[in-house]
């Protein structure tokens, strides 16, 4: 099983994608399954080290949180953009990373970018710090704490521990 499905999450993801694309039918279910197995196997060499999913429910919860944040942040940022640019308080913020896994770090960076108002600008060479640009920052510590609490910690629980 391990050999056939080295990355079960990926396979699941691919299978669902296939079904989303084609709609469900037995034929596509089968074909999608085949593809979901074959494609990760075929691209196996491109995956040197991938973290294993530890906690699926938390992942679901994380996704929902992020979506919620996207919506609310969008509203907030829209106000900022439409308002006077002078009032903006831009800042570069360095976020010390607790995450160690590349994949998790990337997910964190992406999440930060997806939620309006912050963009992850760089990852330090030692992968200990994430540079973030914020559109309008009130207090650096607060922002860091918020990110750590809402995104980094869940990610750590989902992929690492």
């Amino acid at each position, binding site marked *: 099983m391990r050999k056939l499905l080295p990355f079960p999450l*990926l396979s699941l*993801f*691919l299978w669902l*994608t*296939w079904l989303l*694309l*084609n709609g469900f*039918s*037995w*034929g596509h279910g*089968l*074909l999608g399954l085949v*593809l979901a197995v074959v*494609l*990760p196997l*075929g*691209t196996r*060499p*491109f*995956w040197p080290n991938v973290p294993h999913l530890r906690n699926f429910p938390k992942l679901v919860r994380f996704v929902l949180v992020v979506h919620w944040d996207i919506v609310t942040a969008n509203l907030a940022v829209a106000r900022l953009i439409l308002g006077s640019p002078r009032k903006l308080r831009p800042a570069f913020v360095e976020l010390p990373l607790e995450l160690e896994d*590349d*994949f998790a*770090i*990337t997910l964190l*960076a*992406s999440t930060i970018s997806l939620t309006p108002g912050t963009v*992850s600008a760089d*990852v330090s*060479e030692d*992968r200990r710090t994430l540079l973030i640009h914020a559109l309008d920052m009130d207090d650096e510590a607060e922002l860091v704490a918020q990110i750590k609490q809402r995104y980094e910690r869940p990610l750590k629980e989902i992929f690492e521990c």
Partner: protein
Amino acid sequence: MTLAVLVLLPFVGAALPLLADRLRASRTVLALSAALMPALALVLLIAPAGLVFDGQTVHAALPWVPSLGLALSFRLDGLALLFALLVLGIGLLVILYARYYLSAQEKAGRFFAFLLLFMGAMLGVVTSDNLLLLVLFWELTSLSSFLLIGFWSHQSAARKGARMALTVTGMGGLALLAGVLLIGQIVGSYSLGDALASGDLIRASELYPLILGLVLLGVFTKSAQFPFHFWLPHAMAAPTPVSAYLHSATMVKAGVFLLARFYPMLAGTNLWFDVVTLAGMATLLWGAAVALFQHDLKGLLAYSTISHLGLITLLFGLNSELAAVAAVFHIINHATFKASLFMAAGIIDHETGTRDMRRINGLWKYMPYTAVLAMVASAAMAGVPLLNGFLSKEMFFAETLESSRLGAMSWVLPLGATLGGVFSVAYSARFIHDVFFNGEPVNLPKFPPHEPPRYMKVPVEILVALCVAVGVLPSITVAGLLAVAAAATLGGELPEYHLAVWHGLNLPLMMSVVALVGGVLVYSSRNWLFRQYARLPEINANLIFERRIQGLARGAAALSNFLRNGSLQSYAAWLLTLVALVLLVHLSPAVLDGQRALLPLDGVSLLAGVMLVVAALITAILHRHRMTAIMSMSVVGLVVSLAFVRLSAPDLALTQLSVEIVTLLLLMLAMYFLPVRTRMESGWPRILRDLLLSVIIGGGVGVMAFAMMTSDFQSISGYFLENAKPGGGGTNVVNVILVDFRGFDTFGEITVLGIAAMGIYAMLRDLDLLSAPSDSLGRPWARDAHPLVLVTISRPLLPLALLISVYIFLRGHNLPGGGFIAGLITSVALLLQYVASGVAWVHRRMPGDYHPVVAVGLLLAGITGVASWFFGHPFLTSTFDYLYWPLVGKFEVASAMLFDIGVFLTVVGATLLMLANLGKLSLLDDKAKEGA
């Protein structure tokens, strides 16, 4: 048929000396091998000659190219016989002479081969019974003489002389060809017999002056008539046997031969008289006068030859039958004495090592025997009684007195003739006196000179003997031959004439006497004359000609380089100007007569259109800021894709979008090695010109587009819409067209892609390029080559993109998609791996040579096509069926899909072959930097 064989014998014979040379045969054997075929030809000539003397004309014909009217047909009449005898007879003597003349180091085999080639060509000219064949042999004489004159190719003079002769006579030959073709048009046949019989027709034709001009151009160039005489003296750079043969006895006679041959066809008009006579007269006088002043022995003889050819030409021009007879007679006589004189000159050159008469003096003492022979021949040339030259010259004088065409000016002709005679005597006297007497030799390279080898003199002896025999007993020796030759020339009855040494005391004899006495007087005042001559500016025709040719070549190069100036901008402007002209001239408002209803224009489309226009204009305006231009061009691409969406072309939208991305990758790869900015280089005139072209062509194409869109038309497309599903098994008609109806186009298209990839690979291999060590702002490049976020995201995208590719591929037959787009998506996903993780990383995980992928893709497409043969169908016939599987249900299997997989693989292979190798380029550069 003997005749045809006879003419072709020398050509065969040309191989023999070459063969002998190969076998390292002695020079005697070489000469014998060369002489074999001409001798045989001469023997074979005996039988037909008999018939000719009986008044018959012998014919032989082999078909060759009837479509062109070209046949290997020969005729032997008196004129042809006369010339055949000269060609073969003198040819044999020249071979014998050359055996001794050529030194041991020289490539005698080649020499004799060329000589025989020439002999064959000459024989062909004189015996042709077909006008085209005549021209063919005519040009062959030019070509073979080119080889002979240039035989001593290490000498600049020989090369130049050869080229000049070829150029001048070649030009004449081309003119003659044109003339002959016109004659053929009038006569309706290229048979010489037909043409000769159609003289009235030709002379009456309005093309006659043109024909005459063209033919005479051939004649005058070949026979070195004024003003085309200048090449002949420079042909003297040839070995003397060649001069003796070509430039006295044969080739230059081809011109006057043609006058004789075409006499019944072209002569008899005033135009003929005026042109031919005047050219002859001018040549006669010019040649005779200049000959006297030559210090080169062969130069003197060459100008004398020019002069005598002028005399013959003049005779033909007189439009009198007797004059024509005299001309033929003088041809014979001149051939004999001039050939012997050249040979004598060759002997002297051979024995003294020089041909400069200022150094050669008093040879009488050292080689009396040769001196006698040369003196007799010179006397013949001077027209001394009891020698052959006297007889024909007498006839010539007589004929000049007969003509009344010039009316009150008729005295000019005899006066000119006499004057020519005077100079002729003078230069003959110089040849005798200045060479054999006139004190002691001066500083000869070879001293003392001796008599030449015994057999080297034999040819001279024979020819001199002929001069004397004809001169003394013309009626026994030459009368018969002259009669048949003259009769053939005139093409009818011969006029009354008598060949005798003594015609009584008459005006012609007086003219001879005047010439003799005058000549001696002129010669005796030579020192004064030479001084006057030396004051004249020296005219070296060779130099002038060479300079002219060089100037011509320079001019040609200048013109060529002006047009082909090496500037792509100029070439492209020519091309586009042509297009603009087509549009300007042919695009009338009439094209806008369409009645088709217009589609409404909505705001979104309008704004999108404006965006495209703006982006395109910005691309053009800001093209010097390269990155900006690339970005604005991407906008154009995006809007074009959106336009395809809007205009019901989802397949095209997908294709355009994916191509767009790959193209941008490509450009970014290239930009690493290219300057980021373009300098302002075009001046305003050019920019305005280019703007004009852009406006005309862009506007024209736009107008045509509008005209097309607004007019209705009938097309074959209904067929595709109807048959896509039942016949092709798919509902996406575009895809069915691509893989089925017009699968062959697609086969070609993927081949193009594959070839492009191959060509790109070939260009990239071992290409050294310097990449920029810093960015456009002068900063060193960033350190982070493989950004973490990019790397991490790129990896799951690979299986995802592959999944999407499969999806796009499978649905292609029925819905937008297909192998091509799927292939591009896969390629982009793979390229992303390269971008994110680098070449080395990727190549550790997958083979880096994409040639086989392209090959397999193309082969798959090809084999799918071929497979239909086994079902009895043509290439690329597709088949499909519906299969039922439990659970899965009904699904379609089409051979076209296999073809589409071929497309997919080709696209993937080709794209990666191009871009991955382009990406690798920097690795080489890095290595180079490390090495440095």
